[in-house]
Structures are given as structure tokens and as C-alpha cells.
């Protein structure tokens, strides 16, 4: 059977890929997708520890994380669309309205 540390290491790697994705992409949609990757890494951790602790609480938390992810995606994409209408760009570097 696969030990717990493999799952945790996989989760670490996925989390880091998500962080790199947030930092290096110019498109704001890709930043949102990288956030999905990070949330998935956290979910892997939750499920792995839930399995190894023989407790279902971790899986319940995975549901709540998924709920928040769905809400975040809906609101985030709506904000992106509004910003695109106003600025006609999806580039993160050009969203500088709050800079002074």
C-alpha cells in the first residue's frame, strides 16, 4: 500500500505548481485556474489524512472546500468579465486602477 508521505508529497508538488502558475501567467483566467490547482492540492491532503486517521471529517471539509471553490470561480469569472468590459484586457499587469 502506498504510504501517506507519497500523497503528501504529491500535494506539495501540486501546490507549488499552482503557486508558480499564479506568479508567471499574464492572463487572469490562468491565475484563477492555478488557484483551482492549489485547492486541489489541499483536497488531496485532506483526503489522505482522513484515510490515514480513519476519520471522515477530512472528507466533509473537502466538500466545503469544493463549495467555496465553485462560488469563487463563479464570482471571479463574473468580475473578470466586468473588468474586461471596462478595460478590454485580461492581462493582470494592466489592472492598475488601484495603483496611485
Amino acid at each position, binding site marked *: 500500500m502506498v504510504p*501517506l*508521505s507519497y500523497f*503528501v*508529497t*504529491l500535494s*506539495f*508538488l*501540486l*501546490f*507549488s*505548481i*499552482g*503557486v*508558480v*502558475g499564479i*506568479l*508567471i*501567467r*499574464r*492572463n487572469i*483566467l*490562468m491565475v*484563477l*485556474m*492555478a488557484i*483551482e*490547482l492549489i485547492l486541489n492540492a489541499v*483536497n*488531496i491532503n485532506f*483526503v*489522505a489524512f*482522513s*484515510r490515514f486517521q*480513519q476519520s*471522515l*471529517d477530512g*472528507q*466533509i471539509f*473537502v*466538500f*466545503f472546500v*469544493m*463549495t467555496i*471553490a*465553485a*462560488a*469563487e*470561480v*463563479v*464570482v471571479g*469569472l463574473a468580475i*473578470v*468579465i*466586468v473588468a474586461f*468590459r*471596462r478595460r*478590454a*484586457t*485580461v492581462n493582470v*499587469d494592466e489592472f492598475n486602477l488601484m495603483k496611485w
Partner: protein
Amino acid sequence: MILGSAVVAITAPNLIYSALALLVTLIHVAGIYVLLSAEFVAAVQIIVYAGAILVLYLFVLMIFSEHQGQQALHASYPVGVFLGLVVLAEMLMVYWGTGAASDGGTLAPPVWAKAGNTQAIGVLLYTKYLFPFEIASIILLVAMVGAITLGKRSHKAKEVAGANGSSNGHETIAAPISRVAVEHRQEETPRV
């Protein structure tokens, strides 16, 4: 496979390709859940993430697909890669360096194997976690209302867009967003 498709997802120059690579990643993560005998979480992962969230992304990508910049990566992306590696090294050091990794031990069969994963989760969700469950449904409702409100064109925005005269293709953006939000809502409800 998960890591490879995740790397493709964050580096592919075409956004559609990266969305599809993200889909591959999510489905493989569902496979990991099955491996951990969390079948219900795996099913919800496929339905909600692969079914709903990725479809929502693809809708928006179709709208934006002709507006992509020439350069996909940020100008200073080596700094981003370096910071990501720093984060990874920190996590690995904390986990492997402190001896926490050796506590894994052997794996007993899950205690919920008798009654079934879904039934055990349902019982726990409606007894111990009833109040967080209600809060989660309120959050979904607020997200749906917020998405529809944001997606609707206000009069002021219409004037601005009319002054620009360049808003023809975007009148229909609000409709798919609110529709997919409703789809989200409908999928969240029967899953318990």
C-alpha cells in the same frame, strides 16, 4: 501524470489547451481519491470540477479567446519559478525534515467500509456538520446572486460602452454566466 498535466496547464500558451490539461489533472486527482477509498469525494470531484467548473472556464475562454496577448508568460517569470521552488522546498523541509513523514505507518481498511462511504458521509454531514452545511448553501446562493448582478449590464456601463462603440460581441456574456451558476446550484443540491 497529474504533475505533468498540471505543468502543461500552467505553461501552455493556448488557454484552451491549458484548460483541457487542467481537466486531465482534475480527473487524475479523482483517481487518487478512489485510491484512498473516498469514492464519494471522487464522484463529486468529477461532477463539480470536471463537469461544472471546467465548463464554466471553457465558456469564458471561448469569449476571450480572440483577445489573448501575444506573450503568455509574465516577463519576469524566472522569479516566479524561483519563488515556487522556495515554497516547495520549505514544505518538503518541514515535512520530511522533522520526522513527520515517518508517522504514516500501515494502512488499515477504512472503518466506513461496512456501511459505504456515501452513507457515512451523509450521516456525518447531517448531524455533526449541519450548521456548516447550511452556511455553505448560503454561500452558494450569495455567489449565484453576485454573479448575476455582476454579469448584468448597468445603465452607466452601457453608456460607457456605447460611447466606445466597441461592445458588440459582449452583450451575451451575462447569459452563460448566470446559467452556469444555476447549474452549479442544481448540482450542489442533489449531491447529498
